[in-house]
């Protein structure tokens, strides 16, 4: 079972935060097919948000085909998002950690590292789109 | 409703019951004692033939208990102040009216439950007090005291019950109107005292037309029973004109009589009597006591009904 964290200052709507956190948990292997998501009441009691928000998030996940609501039982994971298996994330995370260490050693602060990652991502995406 | 009323007021109710029990006990002990003293005095006066004045000095040592009995006249005010005034006002002050008026009970029903309870309590206390005091006072009544005096009339018979009902509803209506306990309390005391003073002095004497009696100025006794309520006594001339009140008795006198006024002179009364002057006495006979009790009770019960009606209208105002 996973626990959610809602940050009202982030600007991301709370229901979207739940969708993203479920997606992340699926990608990194915290959740697998057949696992049950916390019930609406459990989520509401632990993070103090509107139950409709949780319902909206679960509906969104259901529409995307990742989970399935079984009336009177709960919401269960039916499919993992496409992408590499969970192990791939772990390996990539390790090599990213090594790269971050290297960048820090070169004198970059966190802000510069973030900026570098973001610009690399965007230039890469633009290049990809241009190629398509 | 009954459950809530009892839960909220059980402490007050038990306290009142305790105070009442102490009072009844004190009255019972002293009442028995006074009856014994009176009967003993009757025995001894019969021997000397002085029974006409037996009551004059009989209970002069019992001032404290007589004061206590007379003080029961303020009990209706206390009921109004401690039970009537806070009934609605304290709820509003503490905000609990918003709790209670949003349960599945209409304000009317909530008020009805409370009104029934407070009227029952007031009736109970009024009856208990008046039964005790009326019983206690029977020795005084035997002596032939004037039972119309405020110290007697107001604490005996049925009016104490009517006053208690009026006091309770006056407090209730004041609380419903002012919605502040302290203000309602002051209004209750003020209105009650003012109304009682007005009734005793200006209204009560006129419930029934007073009996008028003309007595010779030379008569040894007025012939009016000492337990009656004398309202007015003055001298009238032969034409029936009141010559006392406008202060011109001496000026209006025949010269023959005026000469008899002065130190060491006598006979002015018999002189005036010859000229047709008479003593005019207006009074309420003792046997009208219960008529007066019923009339006065009727007035205060009617006022209580009006006040309860007012409270039911006022409770509908915005919370």
């Amino acid at each position, binding site marked *: 079972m996973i626990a959610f964290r809602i940050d009202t200052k982030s600007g991301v709507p709370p229901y979207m935060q739940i969708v993203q956190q479920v997606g992340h948990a699926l990608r990194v292997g915290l959740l697998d097919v057949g696992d049950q998501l916390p019930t609406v009441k459990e989520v509401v*009691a632990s993070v103090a948000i509107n139950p409709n928000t949780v319902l909206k998030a679960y509906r969104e996940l259901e529409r995307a085909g990742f989970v399935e609501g079984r009336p009177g039982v709960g919401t269960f994971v039916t499919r993992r998002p496409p992408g590499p298996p969970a192990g791939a994330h772990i390996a990539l995370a390790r090599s990213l950690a090594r790269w971050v260490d290297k960048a820090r050693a070169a004198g970059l602060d966190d802000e510069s590292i973030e900026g570098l990652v973001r610009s690399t991502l965007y230039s890469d995406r633009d290049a990809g789109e241009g190629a398509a | 409703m009954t459950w809530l009323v009892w*839960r909220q007021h059980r402490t007050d109710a038990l306290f009142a019951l305790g105070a009442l029990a102490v009072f009844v006990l004190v009255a019972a002990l002293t009442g028995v004692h006074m009856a014994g003293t009176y009967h003993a005095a009757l025995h001894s006066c019969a021997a000397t033939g002085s029974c006409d004045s037996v009551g004059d000095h009989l209970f002069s040592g019992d001032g404290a208990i007589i004061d206590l009995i007379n003080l029961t006249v303020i009990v209706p005010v206390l009921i109004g102040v401690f039970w009537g005034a806070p009934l609605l006002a304290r709820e509003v002050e503490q905000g609990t009216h918003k709790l209670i008026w949003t*349960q*599945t009970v209409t304000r009317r029903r909530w008020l009805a439950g409370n009104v029934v309870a407070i009227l029952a309590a007031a009736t109970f206390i009024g009856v208990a007090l008046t039964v005790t005091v009326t019983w206690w006072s029977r020795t005084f009544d035997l002596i032939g005291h004037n039972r119309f005096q405020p110290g007697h009339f107001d604490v005996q018979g049925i009016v104490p019950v009517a006053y208690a009902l009026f006091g309770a509803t006056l407090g209730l209506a004041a609380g419903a109107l002012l919605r502040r306990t302290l203000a309602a309390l002051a209004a209750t005391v003020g209105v009650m005292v003012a109304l009682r003073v007005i009734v005793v002095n200006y209204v009560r004497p006129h419930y029934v037309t007073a009996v008028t009696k003309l007595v010779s100025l030379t008569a040894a006794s007025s012939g009016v029973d000492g337990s009656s309520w004398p309202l007015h006594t003055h001298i009238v001339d032969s034409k029936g004109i009141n010559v006392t009140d406008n202060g011109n008795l001496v000026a209006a006198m025949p010269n023959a009589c005026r000469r008899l006024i002065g130190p060491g002179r006598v006979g002015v009364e018999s002189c005036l009597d010859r000229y047709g002057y008479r003593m005019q006495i207006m009074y309420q006979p003792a046997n009208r006591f219960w008529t007066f009790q019923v009339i006065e009770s009727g007035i205060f019960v009617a006022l209580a009904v009006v006040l309860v009606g007012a409270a039911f209208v006022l409770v509908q105002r*915005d919370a």
Partner: protein
Amino acid sequence: MTTRVAIAPVAIATHDLTKQYRAKTALSRCSIEVPEGSVSALVGANGTGKTTLLQILAGLSQATRGEAEVLGRAPTQDPAFLAEVGFLAQEIPLYRRMTANDHIGMGAHLNRRWDSAAARSRVESLDIPLDQPVGTLSGGQRAQVALTLALAKRPRVLLLDEPVAALDPLARRQFIAALGVAVADGDLTVLLSSHLVNDLERVCDHMVLLADSRPQLCGEIDTLLAEHKVLIGPRRDTSVIERAHTVVQAETTARQTTLLIRVRGPLIDPSWEVHDVALEELVLAYMGRAAELSRARQVMGAAG
């Protein structure tokens, strides 16, 4: 004023609701709609009519003009109406010398529908003593007892006046969680007032914004946020934007113009940088606008 598509039936509706005290207008032509099943935030500065509106809806006050409907009924002194509506006043009224247990017993005597068992277990689960006079409890505990009483009635509409104002952050969080669980249990619409929007952002999905005794905004929070944008661009004439959209707030510096607008159509001008708007920003913008309009009206009134 809102283009919300009604997906749920309306639980609370008012039309031109006005409350006039002797010299003061507490509520002026207030028309709102709250859909069934929503948790609606009644937001506004102090003294803008939030309490007046809630008390009229709870049947505690009478409107001077206009209509109000709660679950299709006008608020009245009718047991059928009172049974459906729970109300918690700002001062969290309880009988200080009575215990939580006494209060629960009282509710059982005063209501047709009353869940004593659920109320007791709720109080116990919060570690609040059942047999201690409520006057000895903390503010947070009293608020929880009062909410328990309001919920034990099993109302279909719950009206809460500044319920978290007096609570510390932990008690506030617990209260809001409790409220959310009650809504998750089904068939409950909540309208709760607050002068702070942060407390309510988590739990509310609908908002009514009162300013200057009038409703300024009423709708689903997500929809309202999507309908509003912040535009940042070089300083210039904004009349084109004003014709196409509603400008809620405009700020100009020597070089820059920042607009908060309600979007009424496509945004075509590429020279504006478009940002999403946060709820608090939106609320403050509307409050500021209402204050300005009110000042302008007063000036006009004084001039006329």
